[in-house]
């Protein structure tokens, strides 16, 4: 089995507050892996460790068989944070160009990737506009395009569909599925929306810094003898108490 990400015995606390408590998880290559849980469960902290922004107090994080944090590995990781994180004075194209030039891409590759990602998120006609004139959905899409700019092996999306209308959410999910199927990307998504969880290949339910249960959506529902992931979450959470 080929793993894109291996997290072993990871714990993290800020002061007295334990944010992550002995997390173990493996993410297979070419999967859409969902981290599901309420706000404050520790999803973002976990994701930040994958990008090397945070360091575990205990345990190890391996990405593509190399230990994080590792600067070179970031070439292979596309990261989209919860906030859009765009330069609003610049145009969409200038934003893409700026981030493209931070990665190892030559001029021709840059051009090609900018055209490709812009087309992917349907922003080709809006590239010359300043980002301050973009709608919320357009900003989100541009943010996704930036995360894809260097053609990363792994895509990490922290709450990618928060504040997005259902139509756009559907189109983003279709893109993610296409990236997985046609390009074999590993995609890690955090969300607290249960109907999105159903689209993932594999789920880990996070609560209070612990993984309370994990498995494919179908297996999870079967194991708990329920018909919805919401019930799985409630049952799994309830067992612990």
């Amino acid at each position, binding site marked *: 089995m080929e793993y894109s990400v291996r997290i072993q015995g990871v714990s993290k606390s800020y002061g007295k507050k334990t944010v992550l408590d002995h997390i173990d998880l493996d993410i297979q290559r070419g999967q859409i892996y969902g981290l599901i849980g309420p706000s404050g469960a520790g999803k973002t902290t976990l994701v930040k460790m994958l*990008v090397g*922004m945070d360091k575990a107090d205990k345990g190890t994080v391996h990405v593509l068989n190399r230990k994080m944090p590792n600067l070179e590995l970031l070439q292979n990781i596309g990261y989209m944070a919860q906030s859009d994180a*765009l330069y609003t004075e610049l145009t969409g194209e*200038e934003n893409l160009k700026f981030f493209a030039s931070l990665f190892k891409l030559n001029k021709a590759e840059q051009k090609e990737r900018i055209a490709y990602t812009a087309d992917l998120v349907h922003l080709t006609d809006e590239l010359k506009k300043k980002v301050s004139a973009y709608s919320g959905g357009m900003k989100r899409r541009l943010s996704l395009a930036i995360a894809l700019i260097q053609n990363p092996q792994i895509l990490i999306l922290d709450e990618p569909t928060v504040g997005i209308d259902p139509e756009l959410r559907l189109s983003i999910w279709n893109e993610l599925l296409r990236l997985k199927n046609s390009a074999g990307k590993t995609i890690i998504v955090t969300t607290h929306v249960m109907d999105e969880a159903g689209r993932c290949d594999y789920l880990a339910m996070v609560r209070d810094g612990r993984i309370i249960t994990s498995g494919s959506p179908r297996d999870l529902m079967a194991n708990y003898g329920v018909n919805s992931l919401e019930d799985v979450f409630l049952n799994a959470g309830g067992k612990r108490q």
Partner: protein
Amino acid sequence: MRTSALIKRIGQQMLRDKRTLALLFVAPLLILTLMYFIFNGNGDGENPKLGLVNIMAPVAEALKQGNIDIVDVNGVTSEVIKENKLEGILGLVDGKLTLLLENSDPSQAKALLMKINKSVASLAQNATGSSLPISIETDYVYGSSETTFFDVLSPILVGFFVFFFVFLISGIGLLRERTTGTLERLMSTPIRRAEVITGYLAGYGIFAIIQTIIVVLFAVNVLDISLVGSIWNVLLINLLLALVALSLGILLSTFAASEFQMVQFIPVVVIPQIFFAGIVPLDGIADWLQAVGKIMPLYYAADALKGVMYRGVGFTEITKDLLVLVAFAAIFIGLNVLALKKYRKQ
């Protein structure tokens, strides 16, 4: 490569933000001009009244042409000045030219002294072999030759405005990057921490250099602030000061959660520096307070600027001040690279 991408982006952002550019380039000139008129309030008003004792006609004529009102008096004393409400008395006493200045307004006294010096010097040059001594012995009714106003103040002000605006704009620039999450995103790319800081220093540094050049040229050429020494030294001092302000602004933005908090650093970090920069004479204050002044970058920049602009000293005499400024910048830059660890552990 990455650094140049950063520089280019900062340039694009700055050029889009016209108001910030205006603040950076025009506001210092506005304030400097305002201060100039405040401190030189009476400069263009009435001609100064000068009493003469035993002065020959050509000199009196030259003084008159220099817009000085001439009155003949009978002695070089404070009493005569007060009696006749004069700004000063010039007299030839025992073969020596003696000038007694009233000096209640140092800037006026200074201007008068310069006019007299100029008239006498040009006269002495034209008529070689004349019996007129070139050196003038100057005395003051109030204060001393040390009490001058804008000429001493202006070098400090030039340095201060360069420091202040660069500090503010670079600090808020990086702060915005922190609050919008773009810094976090930047740190999720393979860019090195030192590359980020270098990019920031260079990106804003370009604007700081332009600002410094505009401010210095404006002060010297338009406001006629006295510049005895070399303008290149003045530019060099201000550029180093801008670098210190740039790195300090970026560093302090780490400790601010919003633009508002960044502005709150002004009374804490910026204003105290102006007091220690030499606007207020520091000789009289407590030793420990003088020591506080020595940890302020503006203290050294002001010392060097006063030296070059007012006293006309050369490069070797300001080397120590320049080295201290370089040290300040190096420390702040190093701390900046460390502070970015907050965003990425490597």
